[in-house]
């Protein structure tokens, strides 16, 4: 049993219901015991820190203080949402670095009868815990329905590996750990160079043209690489690419059909759970077609658009044929670069 404190964040209850359902399903087999922090509040999302940092830190610190009070043998708080993770981790980091800030924040917390001791809580993302603590060997042992070469683009988004306070990831720009996890499930991981690029966050609300281009770029790159779907670990990324894909298509006059699922959903499929139990079918851009190819049938739901027939965006650029000068030899399958 691997026991952690759990900070779900607001999207797990709403737009990322599928993330929550699939996490609940696989939590048992993975031996993941998550104790939700009681009476947690909003992490401030991406905006608050830009408006009033001190107040934003105070808001987040309340969650840290509650977590400290509730320590359950583990001092680690796990957050499944990248924005929640970063806000919690960043606040913890600054409180440790800046004694003045910690004192100020604690004055604020005292009003609610709370106190936080910097350094007492460790904040980690769900993927981090699944990959490094549970490990791909354990996951490999639980796979009963390998994903039979489903072509996926691993999309981590911008916040999980940056800034990497604890130096967990091999590289901040092109981490390969996620690839290895997906490969363990039997998926075929395409070369997706935008794995840590931005999905646009809330840009679709502020500057739709900017937001759509950020979304298009990701979908286009995944499509060019031959992916059948994107796999993510962040509710915000999932929502942008899923919910705004139709609008983006209208804006650019394209007809991409690129589903995006949570990694927990793919783990669930590989573990043999039925798709309904994992929230599959609730995504707007349906993954049905892609999953049908590997023999997984998904019941039809109302939310989804009719499956677009035919081509997506511009024709795929043929990959450069290696007939000329030789390319350098590349690192092995698991993507570990030399030294």
């Amino acid at each position, binding site marked *: 049993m691997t026991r952690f404190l759990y900070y779900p964040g607001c999207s797990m209850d709403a737009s990322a219901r599928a993330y929550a359902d699939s996490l609940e399903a696989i939590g048992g087999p993975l031996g993941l015991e998550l104790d939700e922090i009681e009476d947690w509040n909003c992490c401030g999302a991406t905006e608050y820190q830009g408006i009033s940092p001190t107040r934003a830190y105070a808001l987040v610190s309340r969650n840290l203080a509650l977590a400290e009070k509730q320590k359950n043998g583990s001092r680690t708080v796990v957050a499944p949402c990248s924005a929640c993770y970063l806000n919690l981790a960043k606040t913890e980091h600054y409180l440790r670095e800046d004694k003045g800030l910690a004192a100020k924040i604690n004055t604020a917390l005292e009003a609610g009868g709370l106190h936080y001791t910097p350094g007492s809580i460790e904040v980690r993302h769900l993927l981090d815990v699944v990959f490094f603590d549970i490990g791909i060997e354990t996951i490999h042992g639980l796979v009963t329905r390998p994903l039979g070469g489903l072509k996926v683009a691993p999309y981590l988004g911008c916040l999980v590996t940056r800034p990497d306070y604890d130096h967990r990831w091999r590289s901040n720009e092109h981490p390969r750990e996620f690839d290895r996890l997906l490969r363990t499930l039997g998926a075929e991981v395409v070369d997706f160079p935008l794995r840590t690029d931005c999905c646009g966050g809330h840009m679709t609300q502020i500057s739709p043209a900017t937001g759509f281009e950020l979304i298009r*770029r990701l979908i*286009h790159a995944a499509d060019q690489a031959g992916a059948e779907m994107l796999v993510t670990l962040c509710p915000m990324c999932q929502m942008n690419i899923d919910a705004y894909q139709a609008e983006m298509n209208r804006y650019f006059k394209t007809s991409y059909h690129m589903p995006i699922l949570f990694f927990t959903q793919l783990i669930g499929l590989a573990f043999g759970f039925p798709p309904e139990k994992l929230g599959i079918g609730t995504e707007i851009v349906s993954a049905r077609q892609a999953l049908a190819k590997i023999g997984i049938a998904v019941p039809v739901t109302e939310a989804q658009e009719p499956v677009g027939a035919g081509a997506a965006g511009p024709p795929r650029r043929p990959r*450069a044929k290696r007939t*000329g*000068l*030789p*390319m*350098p030899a590349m690192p092995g399958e698991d993507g570990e*670069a030399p*030294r």
Partner: protein
Amino acid sequence: MSSAQERIGVYVCHCGSNIAATVDVEAVSEWAGEELADRGVVIARNDKFMCSSSGQEVVEKDIAELGLTRVVVAACSPHMHEKTFRGACARAGLNPYLCELVSIREQVSWVHTDREAATAKAKAVIAGGVLRVAEQVPLEPLRVPIHPATLVVGGGIAGISAALEIADAGFAVHLVERQPSIGGHMAQFDKTFPTLDCAACILTPRMVEAGMHKNITLHTWSEVTDVKGYVGNFTVTIKERARYINAELCTGCGICQEKCPIRVQDNVFEAGLGFRKVAYLPFPQAVPKYPVIDGPNCTYFEKGTCKACEKFCPTDAIDFTQVDKDVVVEVGNIVLATGFELFDARRIEQYGYGRLPNVFTSLEFERMSNAAGPTNGRIVLRDGVTEPKTVGIVHCVGSRDRNYNAYCSAICCMQSLKFAHLVGEHTDATIYNFYIDIRAGGKAYDEFYQRVLEEGTIFVRGRVAEVTDTLRLPAEAADEGRLMIQVEDTLAGKQRRIPVDMVVLSAGLEPPADAKETARLFGISCSSDGWVIERHPKLDPVATMTDGVFAAGCALGPRDIPASVSNGAAAAARILGRIQQKEMALEPVRASVDEARCSGCRICNDLCPYNAIIFHADRMVTEVNPALCQGCGTCIPACPAGAISGTGFSDAQILSQIEGLLMVSASGQLREVVPA
């Protein structure tokens, strides 16, 4: 206590203001004369510069006139002037090892700011020196003969230069090279900066000279596997790998290479950009001219068939029965010129090397621009035919970057400027250089930079963030299929995205992957980066801390061709001086084992960093070879029986020095020391 009989002189140096600004030198010398008189101090003086001739004369005069039997000089570190004052003592007839240097500059004045506390500390260390020197005994330096032959490891330009200097002076050299030919990285280059003379044209005459020299024995396709002995008397084992070619019979006609049916990617000489045969000579001007057969890739060794080379060889020089053989040579000195390896640009994944076909490394570009290279000197994209219209050259790849190597690789700026010039010479392309700072600090280097500027190369100051083939809409729609360089232009103060067809990564220099093993083999030390540490970075830049082992070229750190050649010549000059002396004096500061007390436990055996400890299994005792021992003292405290003692570092000397240190309180007052 012996100090009662000794007559000690104490000399405290001001070192201009280096010491005097932080330590009250006059007060210290006065204090030593009064308070340490009962410890044997008969005279204490101070001088503006003790190391000056007049300063030394004072010491000499006092020895003669006051009958001093011991001298303590409180000045700079013994590394600087120990030799000076030992010399002064010797001239006055006092054994030089009865002089003790106390460092009150590096270890007191330079590291403290509180004058009062620093003055008290100076008194304490001087008291330690006074009590210690009383326990010192006269010593004589050890003399060892110097074998006249020299081993040079690495056949690049630094190694070749060292070997030729020594050989020309009439002494034997064994030049060991891992690859089939000498020449090193310089042989891969097309042009050299800043003069743009052809690398091969200036290198190959030196290679031929080394190959033909009567005093140089080449051991190519070979590696040093064992080094025993000490300065003047090394016994070195060289593993000569099987070439499967009988050098006696081979004429170097090249038919075996022509007839060999197997082609493999050449990751060494062609930097991965071209192919070679399995029976091959890396390049036409290779020295020696004999090819090698690359066993692991050869069909004969794999399947027992083929032998095409053997069938066609006109002189029957192919010999598949050859095996690796060990050659043992005796040498007096060693030069390590083991060079560098290119930083592996795949590690910076955002630059796309290995993923994006039209991203090249600097060595790939060197081969591409070389008329004898895989493209015959044409600058083309990875497809082998298309000439680029825009080329981006990225500086500092893996250098000046705390994620990879913090150091500057020294040659990349000039190399990148050279690339810009060569691209302009061969194509009509627009050329960008992305740099952090231009470091053009050599002779005629900055003039070359100005020339490249005038040729129209565009310089963008900023570290490249990313090289990508994923474009943004709508602005970049026209650049489909090209590469985009994302960079912060720090002079314009904005982010830029610059489309190019080809990217050249000026990858930094790294020590060879096995640099640490090499260091262990030769008993020298490396910095944490892996470069060889010199005895003194400024004043002894080609010697190592191990006597008789020198280093030259990029083994010491990134440097250009002129510096590598100078290093090679400097190491040769140091060695020639010793060879001509025929013998040399070694510091007598050595460990020795009292055999009666040694239990043969061998705890000390593996601790010695200089391999100076020998174990006599027949007598079950350990012995320290005095010529090999560097007097570091590691073995002494490790001995459970206390059987090892260090000349110059006896228990009596160390304990009295500690007593002296403790005699002075933090306020500079004498106090009672009660032995535990």
